[in-house]
Structure formats: structure tokens, C-alpha cells
């Protein structure tokens, strides 16, 4: 079995692959932050059914959820530059590819987060709004101080899932020129032909990362408890 599979090689390549993990983490974090801001704005638009914007948001969400992430990735990273060049922005070539990746991943996460936040805002009892209004709070104050914090707490499990989903999406960005651990695995594999070992390493890295995200999610859920778990 020795020449078919080598644990030794697996162990040796692990540090090499791990050294590229910063790209993966950076992309995930930036995408999620962008996605949360965008998602919240869109959720508010949809909850209040703001004319015009609501329909646009609906179409946007439907598109992002109805098309594969890979297609969106290629569309933005290859199609958008072509569009911009056609419109006259010839300096497009000098923009780093990573920027487009941030854009597409943020837009992707944003659509899903918008739906999550929309359903958690709707799940907040009307009584909370009424109470805030009755003491004279404006809409903005109500949202900022009462509703959004509660909505976030409800959304923590779903948001955690979204982070994991975004993390898994980073496995595809090497196709559009990003040099991350998957690109490295591809390169190493073309020399050593030990693809299986390399991708098993990658698999292990992803599993461990997911595990950490789940721990952080659980920790966050407990921190923002507000006594809910003491109630009967």
C-alpha cells in the first residue's frame, strides 16, 4: 500500500498548506462583515416593504439563491471586468482579483443573511415595538436599541451556519486566480501526484475550522443569553 498512499506525505505537506490559511480566513471574515451590513439593510427594506427597493431586493435575493455560487464567482470575476472595460474603465486590469472575490462573496452572503435577519426581525413580538413606541422612541432608536439586538440573538445559529457556508465557499475561489491552500494543493499535486493525501489534509483543515466556528457560535449564544435559559 506504501506507494499508493503515504501518511508521511500527508504530514509533511500539512504545514505548507496551513501557511496559506490566512487567505481563506481573510476572505471569510471580510465577506461575512460585508454580508451582515448588506443583509441587515436589505432585511429592513423587505420588512418595511419600501416601494421600489423591495422589488429590487426580492429579485437580487432570488438570483443569488437560485444560481450556483461558482457561476456568480465567474460572472463577477470574469464577466464584470469585461463589462467595465466595455463601459470605458480600462484600468480594470490593475484591480486586484481579490477585490472582485470580496465583492461576490459579500453579495452572496448578504442575500442569505437578508433572509435570516428578515425572519428573525419578524419573529420579534409586536409588543416590543409597541412598548418602545409608547415611551416615545423613534423608529431608528427602537431598531438600534431593542429590536436588532434581539433579532441578532435569535439569528445566531443561522448566522453561524452562514459563516460555515461562506467558509466552504472559499474552496472555490482558487479557480479565479486566488492563491490559497487549494491552489497550492493543486500545484503540489501536479508534481507529486499525491492528490489524495493533499486533499485529505485540506479536508482536515476545513473540518477543524468548522469545528472552531461551531464552538464560537455556541459561546456567543450563551453570552447573549439574557436569562432565557433560566426561564422554565
Amino acid at each position, binding site marked *: 500500500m506504501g506507494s499508493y498512499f503515504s501518511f508521511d506525505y500527508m504530514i509533511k505537506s500539512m504545514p505548507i498548506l496551513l501557511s496559506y490559511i490566512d487567505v481563506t480566513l481573510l476572505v471569510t471574515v471580510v465577506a461575512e462583515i460585508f454580508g451582515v451590513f448588506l443583509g441587515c439593510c436589505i432585511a429592513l427594506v423587505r420588512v418595511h416593504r419600501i416601494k421600489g427597493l423591495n422589488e429590487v431586493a426580492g429579485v437580487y435575493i432570488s438570483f443569488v*439563491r437560485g*444560481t*450556483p455560487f461558482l457561476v*456568480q464567482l465567474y460572472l463577477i470575476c470574469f464577466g464584470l471586468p*469585461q463589462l467595465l472595460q*466595455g463601459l470605458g474603465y480600462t484600468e480594470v486590469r490593475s484591480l486586484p482579483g481579490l477585490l472582485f472575490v470580496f465583492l461576490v462573496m459579500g453579495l452572496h452572503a448578504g442575500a442569505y443573511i437578508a433572509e435570516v435577519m428578515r425572519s428573525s426581525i419578524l419573529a420579534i413580538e409586536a409588543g416590543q415595538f409597541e412598548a418602545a413606541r409608547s415611551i416615545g422612541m423613534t423608529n431608528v432608536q427602537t431598531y438600534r436599541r431593542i429590536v436588532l439586538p434581539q433579532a441578532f440573538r435569535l439569528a445566531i445559529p443561522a448566522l453561524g451556519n452562514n459563516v460555515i457556508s461562506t467558509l*466552504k465557499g472559499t474552496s472555490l475561489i482558487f479557480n479565479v486566480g486566488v492563491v490559497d491552500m487549494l491552489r497550492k494543493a493543486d500545484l503540489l499535486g501536479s508534481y507529486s501526484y499525491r492528490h489524495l493525501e493533499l486533499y485529505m489534509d485540506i479536508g482536515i483543515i*476545513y473540518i477543524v475550522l468548522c469545528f472552531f466556528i461551531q464552538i464560537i457560535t455556541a459561546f456567543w449564544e450563551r453570552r447573549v443569553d439574557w436569562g432565557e435559559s433560566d426561564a422554565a
Partner: protein
Amino acid sequence: MENIIDFAFVGEVFFRLLAYVPITLGLAISSMVLASIWGLLIMVLRLRKIPLLGRLAKLYILVGRALPTMVILYLVFFALPVVLLIFSDATGREVTINQVPAMVFAVLGLSIHTGAYLAENFRSAVQSVEKGQLEAAVACGMTWQQGFRRIILPQAAVFALPLLGNQFLTLLKGTSIAFMITVMELFGAANVLCSENNRYLEVYLVVALLYWAISAFFEKAFFVLEHKLAFFKRGMKP
């Protein structure tokens, strides 16, 4: 606008890509069928807490959901030849990997990935059925298997349908990743068109719209199906 989007080309792209839609559908449907059978089996293993297999099932569910689709496809793509080589060495029988079309790897990989999600979906559907239903069944003298098959499964199926629908839509989109293991499906064909013509925008717009249309169709189909099967949930007391 013409030098940005070549509309004639758009039309050509559309018709050439249309031929690949059946392949995508074929991949998705066959993976879904396999994954459902597999997912059901895994769920039962976990539910019955069978000594060793139950633990393995739990591990499989964890791993299958934590790994990105692409990684699972690559693992299957690279692991299977190794397994077959070891097999032919051990038994002395020659099994060449070249005979296996890439699509088999894709379906296998997608099934393994989706099966993990489905196992969890089935579990939550089964647990949504009232506990008392199974108690009544065994109190009548039925075995667990009889009660499960005749009483729990039909009820759980109705709860599971929306989850199954969602998973299928995800699977449809996941078939696009199969091009990375050399399967010539819709997205793979789109990439070929791009490199042949050096035009990206039109091709990717068309392929996105095609996927969008397919998703919308199945989303509607599942919605209708859920409505039809909810007949026995109708009239439930509050």
C-alpha cells in the same frame, strides 16, 4: 451597448447550452435518489443507536456537512482509483479506472455530501412526529419496524418534503462544481464556450439565467407538491 453585450452571441450561447441542461438534471436527480436511500439508512442507524455503526453514522454526518462540496468531489475522484488499485493488488484482479466515466465520481461525491444533510433532515422530520404515535403502535403489539414503517414514516415524509425540496435545489446548484472533476455538464460547457470565444459576460449571464430558471421551476414544483400532501395536516386542532 453592442460592444458590451453581443446579443446575437447571447442567442447562440443559449441554444448551445440548452443541450447540457439534461445532464445537469440527470446528475441532480440520480444523486438525490442515491442520497435519499443512503440518508434514510444513516438516519435509522443513528436513531436505533446501533453500537458501532451508529457512532460511525454520527461521524459521517458531521464530516459530510463540514466539508465543502468541491473537497468531497476531489476526494472521491482521487480516492477511488487508489482504492481500486489496492483492490486489484490484493485480489489480483485487474480493474482499470479509465473505464469509469467521470460522471460516476460526480454522482457518488454529490450523493455522499447530500446524504449527510438528508440524514439530519430526515431525523428532524421523524422527531417532529409525536412520540405518542410510536408508543401507541408498540402498545398494540407492533414491532418497532412495523410501527416505524406504517405509522411514523408516512407522517415524517410530509414533514420532510420542504427540507427535501431545499436540499434538491442546493444539489442542483452543486452540480456546477462537477466540472472541476472533468464532467461536461452545463457550467463546464459554458467555460468551454468562454475560452473558444473569449467572451465571458454573455456566456455567464446566460448560464446564470438558465440555472435561475431551473431553480425557479423546481421551487414552484415542490411548493405545489407540499400543498397537495398537506391534506392530512389540514383540519388539525390548534
